[in-house]
């Protein structure tokens, strides 16, 4: 009993101290991503690469129209003109705004506390994990996601999505989800595990570049950067530092407010882990 109480106090101390210091300093890894919206051309290669890598089912026009698609990564396109400078409101003089959107693996994820069976939780490397075989499909997590990046298997899409021999192209490293479970971007967890295993086999620490997500790998403009935020040598942690964006805050306090890094829905205090770099336009 004393050890139980001791445990509780110890965990609480760690948690509250860690929170003050920007969170999770005991963790080994903190995977996060950065997407440069100025380099993103909206080409959609990331989305298709994700379909190929993660065994995403295509659903066809009717189900897509009923909003039952399984796109983990989608490229949204907004027209909000003019967004900087002056311009005509009758023409799109500054082009379009593309937003590649996927699970942000929020450190304060609203989806995690509400799952009745704890099928979604935060891992020690900072991922928001979705355990398919624990999910009973209550869909509370998806309701609580402000960005709606969770996809539910409303149907068993496998027979139509992978008619033989298309099923031979399935990635054996990734589960093919069944009817009634929730799924979403995992930051290519299979590649993360493979990268970590490789480093372990080679007897060294994980290096930047060992893990490349499918979207990052295919992005032709290299707009996507991925890595371990706790590795100070990594590109991603340098990016977050340079942009003066910190985890654990719902309002950033930048020394240089013109640095263009920001996060979406920060005011909801969900602490997302994808850093977006503002799109730039010459006025």
């Amino acid at each position, binding site marked *: 009993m004393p050890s139980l109480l001791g445990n509780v106090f110890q965990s609480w101390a760690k948690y509250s101290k860690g929170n003050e210091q920007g969170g999770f300093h005991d963790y080994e890894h903190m995977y996060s991503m950065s997407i440069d919206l100025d380099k993103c051309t909206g080409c959609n290669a990331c989305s298709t690469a994700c379909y190929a890598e993660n065994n995403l089912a295509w659903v066809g026009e009717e189900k897509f129209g009923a909003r039952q698609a399984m796109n983990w990564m989608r490229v949204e396109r907004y027209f909000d003109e003019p967004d900087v400078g002056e311009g005509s409101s009758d023409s799109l003089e500054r082009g379009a705004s593309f937003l590649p959107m996927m699970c942000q693996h929020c450190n304060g994820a609203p989806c995690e506390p509400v799952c009745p069976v704890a099928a979604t939780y935060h891992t020690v490397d900072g991922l928001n994990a979705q355990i398919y075989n624990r999910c009973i499909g209550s869909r509370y997590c998806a309701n609580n996601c402000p960005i709606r990046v969770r996809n539910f*298997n*409303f149907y068993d899409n496998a027979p139509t999505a992978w008619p033989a021999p298309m099923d031979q192209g399935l990635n054996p490293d990734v589960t093919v989800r069944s009817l009634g*479970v929730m799924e979403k971007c995992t930051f290519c967890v299979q590649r993360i595990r493979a990268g970590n295993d490789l480093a372990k086999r080679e007897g060294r620490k994980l290096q930047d570049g060992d893990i490349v997500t499918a979207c990052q790998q295919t992005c032709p403009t290299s707009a996507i950067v991925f890595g371990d935020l706790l590795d100070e040598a990594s590109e991603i942690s340098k990016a977050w530092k340079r942009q003066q964006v910190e985890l654990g805050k719902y309002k950033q306090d930048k020394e240089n407010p013109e640095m263009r890094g920001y996060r979406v829905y920060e005011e909801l205090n969900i602490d997302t882990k994808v850093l977006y770099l503002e799109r730039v336009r010459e006025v």
Partner: protein
Amino acid sequence: MSDTKHLTIEQTKDIDENIAWAKINTDVLRSMQNPRKGYWVALAFSMCLFGVMIFAEVWQYNYGMGDALLNTSHMWDLYISTFVFWIGMSHSGTLLSAILHLVHADWRKPIYRFAEAMTTFSLMTAGLFPVIHLGRVWNFYWVMPYMSDRGIWPNFRSPLIWDAFAITAYLTSSVLFLYIGMIPDLAICRDNTTGWRKTLYTFLSLGWRGDDAQWRHFRFTYLMIACLLIPLAVSVHSIVAMDFAMAIMPGWHVTTFPPYFVAGALYSGCAAIMTLFVLLRYFFRFEEYMTMPIMDKVCKLTFVIAMVWTYLNLIEFASVWYGHDIPSKEVLMAKAFGPYSIFFWGMMVFGSVLPFTLLIRAVRHNMFAIFFVSIFLNVGMFLERWMIVTPTLSLGYHPQAFNVMWPGWVEWAMVGGSFGWFGMLFLMFVKIFPCVSMYEVKEMVYHRKRTTYADVDEMMELHSGVPGPEPKPQQTGGS
């Protein structure tokens, strides 16, 4: 009935205090006799409706939730709103049995039994929906905290788990309360029936003899369960409200949701009481027990609760108005002027405007009018539950996810089927168990009598076939 000047004694008193106890028994027991054809038709209809629900569930089990037209934006829809609706209806019984019991409002006595039954069956109906709305229904038991081999427990932070615990607790308590409260009546039934009924009632009445010690224990138990049930009822619907209040979605993340939901629950429970009141009074000819003055009081109670609900509703709108949360404002505007607006205004009219008809005495004393008013009050409440769920999901925070969705046949089949299931249970109940609490009505008559007549003996004379100077409050049989 509408002549307000020449009211008979019957119309001014909650109950005629001269009713013989024997008559109470015979009247109520008569209601449990072999039913007429209409009953069988109603029962068959309910069962068919329930059959539709079974069909829809089998369909959904095999093909998935997709045919329910749920989608990435609308992950919840009619199932959850119907769930909340049924939980809401369940507060009727508790209100009548427990709360009014504690404030000694004895006019509840003729009507609380069916209300309590309604509570139990509402809960049993509501309990279907958390299971139906799961994507993997066959794993529903994972929400129960049991010692699994993997040492995995449910997530106690989730409002859905609190739901599971609260509803289980409330359902158990309600069943217990209904059952225990029925024991003296079951003893009456035991003593007045034969055949399978006698066997059933003998088993259920647990050897009730009606002696003093038993009555004292009974009173205490009844009171304790009533006291337990009130906070349980409040907590259950508050917890159901937390399903929404604990979410961050605009329009859901509202602190007044728990009391708002409880008020709405009491409201729809009262409306349902009114509906069943009219039906039972008519079909079983319970005019002497379910009297006009009691209906009058129920209507007034409903009106008060309607006003409380209206207030909480408007307060929520007010907080959106003076707050700075833009998405919440957008959701409210969408509710009022967007694609679902007709249902929003339906809710406002049925929920806030229609109760004002209950202020009109002519309406309160017209069973026909009451029936329709109460139905529409409940329609208003159903729309309210739907208004809570769907417009928020239709908008939410993220523009890419904005989507308008209408329920499909699967969802309607489930909703309609739930009414079938409820109807089936209730119809079976009224024929097997006394839907008016005989012993409590006798208590009511006795106490009313005592206040009218000073001489106990004189009072007793008026009751034919009651021997002895000191009658016990409960009599079995009679000539």
